[in-house]
């Protein structure tokens, strides 16, 4: 079965091709079915492979397809690697991908670009699978850039809207900044180890000097920063909410943005060998987590809140990676995929019901109209906020435990983030589903629960969010932490937890306390006191406005990078190019012409002058020859 791994990405590719060429003619039903079926097929194959893998002793299989790029010693085959890490990601991608495909059939039903949507979605799954399946860094890079492209296409899905297009472009370009780092990292790996195939590289990893390993780790991390929206390359992700909501759920929450985590877990040997790199990853992660959480507290757009929440959670994952808790990060990726996808899909359901209204200030009291959505989203909110025994609780707690072990300051930051998370999640939940309805009458009239194709995925995901924690049940709970054991073959240096169970219980207690504080504050403010976020910017306090404007980071980038780049370009174009360089080139021509005008004046037409100049020449020559 494992030899048929090629089928996994092949199905979505086929779906993509069919939908791409014939989607429009087939009609919506068929097109959506084909797209979903192709992912379902992938999921089934992935599941079978996953099960096969469990039976295998070595837990890693390489499947060679064909040789791709050859240049002397640089040999890059197009080959796939199935091992615990990729198999988990396979399941997440195809599983959640499938649910979201189903959901989209309902969500996108009225859109004229229905077939196009599924074309892109299938292509995305294809690239995402390449990303996690590749047996060397370049195949990962193929998927890496491929998902970037799909992200670009899907963010700008409604291409008539200029702002959406700008958001798409921004996402692509910011990702490319990271990609350059990634690419240079790959090249450095090649020059250091003479190969970029995972197995060979990791085997030889320690033959490289510390500096080089740090450099590799940091360069790869630059790539991860772009893709997984970390400081300073995170600003594209909130803007990416311009895309249809299922896209936000699939790409910008559950799968693509976790590619950075995948990459670092894959290359964990470089990070565990490099103190510096690990610290950088941890600090960047912690800062991102905190900053995004703060911003999330002041947003009014439901999707923006979720977006910042995603950034913040990704930050937590990087924090985990930074402290060497690689399998924990994957655990959190998994649970996060469940509840964040659910949150986005729920938000999509709300938006769907509200006739595309995304502003929470105009929602409220939707519980009655959307009971299933209310329930499932409630579960997700609890999960992400760290309600005890839900999936998020376990994964986040494991992260906090590892951080506690490594660095107390970072632990404080992480806990603070958890507090804020609970606050803004409940803020969102209350503003959306509770209190009174604040929309227009027309919207109220239209309110309806979403169709089955949308609610079923919500329910499935809700179950997963509830039970996801079982994957990594900690020892303190007499679990065996399956995920950590499963991933152990690919983790180079495992530092088994030295924490006593008492400390763990204490940390869990603190986490629960933090959850209660956050949730209660939100309840107090928004439910009890019925405080509403300021209706317009003018009403905000300066600090609030500053946070609302995301610390003005976009403006800052604009002033520091975009505008100077534009300025330089204009200067190059207007002055250097046309005046200086071309001016010089043309100047030569002009000078020749001018000289020509001058020299031709010598030709006076006067015989006397001709004779005179001849004589002058003769005299000069004779003098010269005599003197010589």
């Amino acid at each position, binding site marked *: 079965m494992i030899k048929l791994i090629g089928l996994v990405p092949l199905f979505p590719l086929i779906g993509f091709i069919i939908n791409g060429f014939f989607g429009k003619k087939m009609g919506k039903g068929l097109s959506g079915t084909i797209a979903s079926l192709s992912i379902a097929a992938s999921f089934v194959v992935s599941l079978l492979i996953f099960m096969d893998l469990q039976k295998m002793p070595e837990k890693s299989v390489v499947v060679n397809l064909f040789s791709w790029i050859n240049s002397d010693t640089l040999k890059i085959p197009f080959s796939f690697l199935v091992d615990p890490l990729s198999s988990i990601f396979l399941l997440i991608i195809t599983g959640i991908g499938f649910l979201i495909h189903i959901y989209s059939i309902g969500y996108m039903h009225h859109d004229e670009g229905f077939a196009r949507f599924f074309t892109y979605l299938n292509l995305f799954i294809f690239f995402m699978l390449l990303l996690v399946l590749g047996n060397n860094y370049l195949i990962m890079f193929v998927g890496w850039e491929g998902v970037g492209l799909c992200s670009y296409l899907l963010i700008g899905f409604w291409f008539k809207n200029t702002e959406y297009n700008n958001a798409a472009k921004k996402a692509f370009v910011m990702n490319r900044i990271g990609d350059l780092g990634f690419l240079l990292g790959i090249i*450095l790996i090649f020059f250091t180890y003479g190969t970029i195939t995972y197995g060979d590289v990791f085997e030889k990893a320690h033959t490289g000097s510390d500096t080089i390993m740090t450099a590799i780790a940091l360069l790869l991390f630059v790539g991860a920063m772009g893709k997984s929206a970390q400081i300073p390359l995170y600003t594209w992700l909130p803007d990416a909410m311009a895309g249809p909501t299922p896209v936000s759920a699939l790409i910008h929450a559950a799968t693509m943005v976790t590619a950075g985590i995948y990459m670092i877990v894959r290359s964990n040997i470089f990070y565990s060998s490099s103190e510096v790199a690990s610290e950088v990853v941890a600090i960047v992660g912690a800062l991102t987590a905190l900053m995004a959480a703060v911003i999330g507290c002041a947003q009014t757009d439901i999707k923006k809140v979720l977006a910042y929440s995603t950034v913040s959670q990704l930050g937590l994952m990087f924090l985990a990676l930074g402290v060497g808790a690689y399998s924990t990060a994957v655990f959190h990726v998994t649970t996060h995929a469940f509840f964040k996808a659910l949150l986005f899909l729920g938000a999509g359901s709300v938006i769907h019901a509200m006739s595309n209204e995304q502003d929470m200030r105009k929602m409220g009291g939707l519980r009655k109209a959307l009971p299933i959505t209310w329930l499932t989203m409630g579960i997700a909110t609890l999960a992400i906020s760290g309600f005890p025994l839900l999936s998020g609780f376990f994964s986040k707690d494991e992260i906090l435990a590892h951080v506690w072990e490594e660095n107390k300051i970072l632990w404080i930051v992480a806990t603070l983030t958890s507090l804020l998370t609970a606050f803004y999640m409940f803020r969102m939940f209350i503003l959306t589903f509770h209190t009174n309805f604040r929309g227009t009458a027309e919207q109220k009239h239209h309110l309806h629960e979403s169709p089955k194709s949308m609610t079923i995925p919500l329910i499935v995901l809700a179950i997963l969010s509830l039970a996801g924690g079982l994957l990594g049940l900690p020892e303190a709970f007499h679990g065996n932490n399956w995920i950590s054991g499963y991933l152990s073959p690919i983790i180079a240096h495992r530092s088994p937890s030295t924490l006593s169970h008492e400390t763990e219980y204490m940390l869990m207690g603190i986490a629960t306390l933090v959850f209660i504080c956050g949730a209660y504050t939100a309840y107090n403010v928004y439910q009890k006191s019925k405080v509403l976020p300021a209706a317009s910017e003018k009403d905000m306090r300066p600090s609030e406005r500053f946070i609302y404007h995301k610390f003005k980071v976009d403006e800052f980038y604009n002033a520091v990078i975009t505008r100077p780049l534009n300025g330089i*370009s204009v200067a190059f174009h207007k002055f250097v190019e046309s005046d200086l*360089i071309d001016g010089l080139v043309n100047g030569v021509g002009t000078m020749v012409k001018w000289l020509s005008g001058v020299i031709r004046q010598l030709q006076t037409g006067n015989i006397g002058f001709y004779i005179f100049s001849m004589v002058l020449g003769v005299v000069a020559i004779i003098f010269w020859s005599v003197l010589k």
Partner: protein
Amino acid sequence: MLTGLLIVIPLIAALLTFFIKGKAARVAALGFSILEFAVSVFAWYQYKTEPLSKQLYLNCTWIESIGANFSVGLDGMSLLMVLLTTFLVPLIILSSFKNEYDKPNSFYGLILLMQMALIGVFTTNDGFLFYIFWELALIPIYFICLVWGGENRARITFKFFIYTLFGSLFMLVALVFLYQHTGMYTGIKSWAINDLYQAGRSLNASQQGYVFWAVFLAFAIKMPIFPFHTWQPDTYVNAPTQGTMLLSGIMLKMGTFGMIKWLLPVVPLGVANWGSWAMLLSVIGIIYASCIAIVQTDFKRLIAYSSIAHVGLIAAGILAWNQQGIQGALIQMVSHGINVVGLFLVADILFRHTGTREISKLGGIRNVNPWFAVLFLIILLGSVALPLTNGFVGEFLLITGVYGYGAWTAAFAGLTVILGAVYMLRSYQGIMLGESNSVTAGFGTLAPSDKAVLIIVCAAIIAFGVYPQPLTDLAEPAVKNILSSTK
């Protein structure tokens, strides 16, 4: 013999085409160029089965007294370039089917003549013949631009002509200088490439430096490399689309190809002493041209600048002088040729359908013609080197090669990855996305010939991106050969 045939067919075809009146000329030209392509594919087959086959080489005495021979041959590298040429010329001819050109027989005859000269440049193993073909290629394109070009064509094409000629004259002087140093042991002077290599390497460092700069100047102007590029955007914009395609798709490869075959192996000391300066110019050119491309308003001009950036990277890869760099350069030369032909055709289609190439005036064409948008997007992705498009294979190898030269150089050269995305996406958004306006609402459908060319180009982009093996098979051993000969 086959190589000789490859040169003779376009020549005869050109002469015949001159005498065919009216629209039949373009059909005939297309037929001839496809025949030429078939022959080149056969040559490829021959090469695969027997790389040193006599069929691929032709050597007749030409000017005995100066030791110049009509010596042509196909090794992997030349074959790659020849295939590129023979592949693109039919596309270029086909792309012109919607343009009504005055005196079509001359137009197509000149294109075929140009093809002959280009194939000559790529196949010759004789320094003198190389120079002849090099110059010969200039004349048809000059007339194509002069007679069928845009508004300011007289001044602009003239600048182009005199600028490139100026460079090649220096190359001629350098070649003559090398020639005078051949035959140290035999006493017989010769233009054969190996003798020139030997002569060049026997020179002292300062002499090699002079030769390096003189020849580099010629190539740098042709490609063009910053700061010798100012003729290029104007010429590209003003030339008829087919002329631009020839210029950017094939002709600029003369410069990069020349660097690989006729410059770097000849004067290794010169390269060692001065190569870093040339590298500096190439890398500056990448960033500089990309920046300018960002603020272009005319789409054709934007492509022109992007071409400078791409070619800068190719030159940098060549100057890095390692396996990955040169191989990447060769592959990228092919990819760039294919992509840029597609891009210029897009520009031409835009102009034909809307009457303008101003990005700000266009927009929303995707609403009107989604297939065109898709094809354009694929070409664009090839151009920004997205993996699984042909552009990526070359660009990855190039950056790897440059990295072998210097990590920071590679980092700066790699900025093209980012800047390329910036200007390309900006133009795509401006042209294709958004609401359609009065200019673009009546865009209509594509002509079959245009559609055919775009589809072939897109197919090639994806095919070579997914499976670049055919290109690699040709390039890899050739590059190894040339590298081992200089070590």
